[in-house]
């Protein structure tokens, strides 16, 4: 038997595979296509204090080996989440992490504080890296001082919940923001969010997305994501003992293994879920095959073992 379980700051995931926030809603949408109980954990769509209707249509566009999205954090809001979704998520039987977004630090604190009261929730993921909203989001995530401030503030209200901080790749040196997050008390880092990008309708000469810009995700960005995970692992996370949840273009077991070797403990699948929802379990099985073939009994034996 291969032990695929990993530990995210004290939360045990039966395997490293989790959903990337925003690509799996609040879990009900995939019911027929993917047995979510078989995942390591579930990360929800971003939740904000008040419901948000999100950006105008069009919100997505495909690009070469990737896609742009500018959903604009459309979500049902904290209270509806607590009332309608949390009970269902609890029944999933796997650790649930709620992604939290906001415009001001107070918003984040309010949402995180309320979520700390819920049994259904094991952790929160602080989205300080959404490129698709006018205020908040990414502006917090690209400046180390801001990162420190917001993480500290939210840290104070995460008593029970594990605090995962989601990093933006739209920075000169991601170890700087990673370090700020860790120093301010992040229990884990998740990376990467999407790259700000644009696609143009050359006939109408307008951006295709109503929001004008969107976030690039999918296989196109994977080599950058692997690099960033490896950098943060070796320069910040390893020494601090802070696990990384890696993501960005994971579609096949091969991709996932790259992230593990680079230093990721958890693995989130986003865009690829749209293409092949069940594929995430294929990734899990592919990792087990790989471990078996290489004579390992536990996935922990390969995390961060890239030889450079």
């Amino acid at each position: 038997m291969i032990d695929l379980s990993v530990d995210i700051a004290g939360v045990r995931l039966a395997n490293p595979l989790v959903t990337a926030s925003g690509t799996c809603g609040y879990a009900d949408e995939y019911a027929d296509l993917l047995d979510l109980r078989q995942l390591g954990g579930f990360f929800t769509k971003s939740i904000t204090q008040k419901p948000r209707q999100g950006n105008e249509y069009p919100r997505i566009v495909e690009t070469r080996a990737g896609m742009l999205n500018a959903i604009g954090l459309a979500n049902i809001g904290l209270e509806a989440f607590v009332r309608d979704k949390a009970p269902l998520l609890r029944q999933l039987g796997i650790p649930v992490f709620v992604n939290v977004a906001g415009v001001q630090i107070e918003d984040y604190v309010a949402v995180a504080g309320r979520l700390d009261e819920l049994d259904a929730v094991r952790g929160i993921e602080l989205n300080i890296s959404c490129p698709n909203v006018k205020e908040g989001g990414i502006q917090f995530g690209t400046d180390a001082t801001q990162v420190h401030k917001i993480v500290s503030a939210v840290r104070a209200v995460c008593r029970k919940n594990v605090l995962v901080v989601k990093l933006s790749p739209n920075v000169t040196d991601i170890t700087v923001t990673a370090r700020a997050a860790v120093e301010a008390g992040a229990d884990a880092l998740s990376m990467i969010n999407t790259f700000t990008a644009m696609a143009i309708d050359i006939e109408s000469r307008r951006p295709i997305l109503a929001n004008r810009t969107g976030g690039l995700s999918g296989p196109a960005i994977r080599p950058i994501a692997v690099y960033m995970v490896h950098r943060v692992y070796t320069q910040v996370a390893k020494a601090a003992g802070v696990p990384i949840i890696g993501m960005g273009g994971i579609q096949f077991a091969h991709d996932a293994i790259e992230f593990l070797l680079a230093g990721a403990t958890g693995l989130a699948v986003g865009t690829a879920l749209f293409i092949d929802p069940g594929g995430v379990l294929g990734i899990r099985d592919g990792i087990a095959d790989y471990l078996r073939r290489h004579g390992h009994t536990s996935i922990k034996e390969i995390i961060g073992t890239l030889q450079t």
Partner: protein
Amino acid sequence: MAVPTTKSKGIFTAGVLANRPACADHFALLLRLAEFPPTQPGQFVNIRCGRVEPILKPTEFEWRPGSLPPPHQPETVGRQPLLRRPISLAGRRDLDDGVELEIIHRVVGVGTAWLAGLKAGEPVDILGPLGQGFRPVDRPLAAVVGGGSGIPPMLYLAEALAAAGKKVVAFAGARSGASLPLTIGAHDLPSQAGWPTLCTAEFAARGAATVITTDDGSLGFPGLVSQALQGWIERSSVAQGELAVYACGPNPMMQAVAGLCLPAGIPCQLSLERHMACGLGACQGCVCKVKDDSPQGWKYKLVCKDGPVFDVGEICW
């Protein structure tokens, strides 16, 4: 009858039974599956337009490791395109040992070009059925109105309505006769005046007479399909209280149909299109505005999950 699946949707590998051009720019694809969940007209499937192929295992070398350059990444397998493509069901047939699904699509880009190149026997990966289909209305007479690639779902709908005992009249509009995905002249010829005749093999087989309209006047009624519908409603003896309208096509066409039905109180359902990523209600990509009694007067619904079929009264254009 095939053993019914217990899930309402799933991912299935279909085999291509036949793939033929349905006109100058549409292809009709007949798929065969061992099983498929129950479907309604108006529902769609989300198709992976790329080879269904196993991912290559890391190469085993002939010689000792390290002798060749380090492996490329085997999953440079760039399926083209990345995301699935939504296509309505144009028909379904349940057989003893499986299910046949028909889809008819217009070749407009990478995904549909890939579909057009499929050969009999090849596998296709489809996710579905998805969305909410048409909800039959309690009216004895049904006008099914399709524009361009909005025609295909009307075939499936016409069949279901006829089977439910309704009298069905089809309105099918295209830019020109050459781009109409229907077989013309089977029993009759299209009327230039816009009167229903048994002029298309497909609708006739489903018990429906058809009005053909073309923008360029090359076939049937010269003008828009909504104009023909209007003419027929006004000039025929149709009792408006007996009629329901179902439509799918480009927005302007559907707006014109809505403009006809809403004031006249004719029940009307419209099938909308949006770019989709997931087709499942998860990504929030495919929003449309529907009326709502919030202060702003509207809210978003998801075309993939709440639609694609909406009631004419709901839609904010």
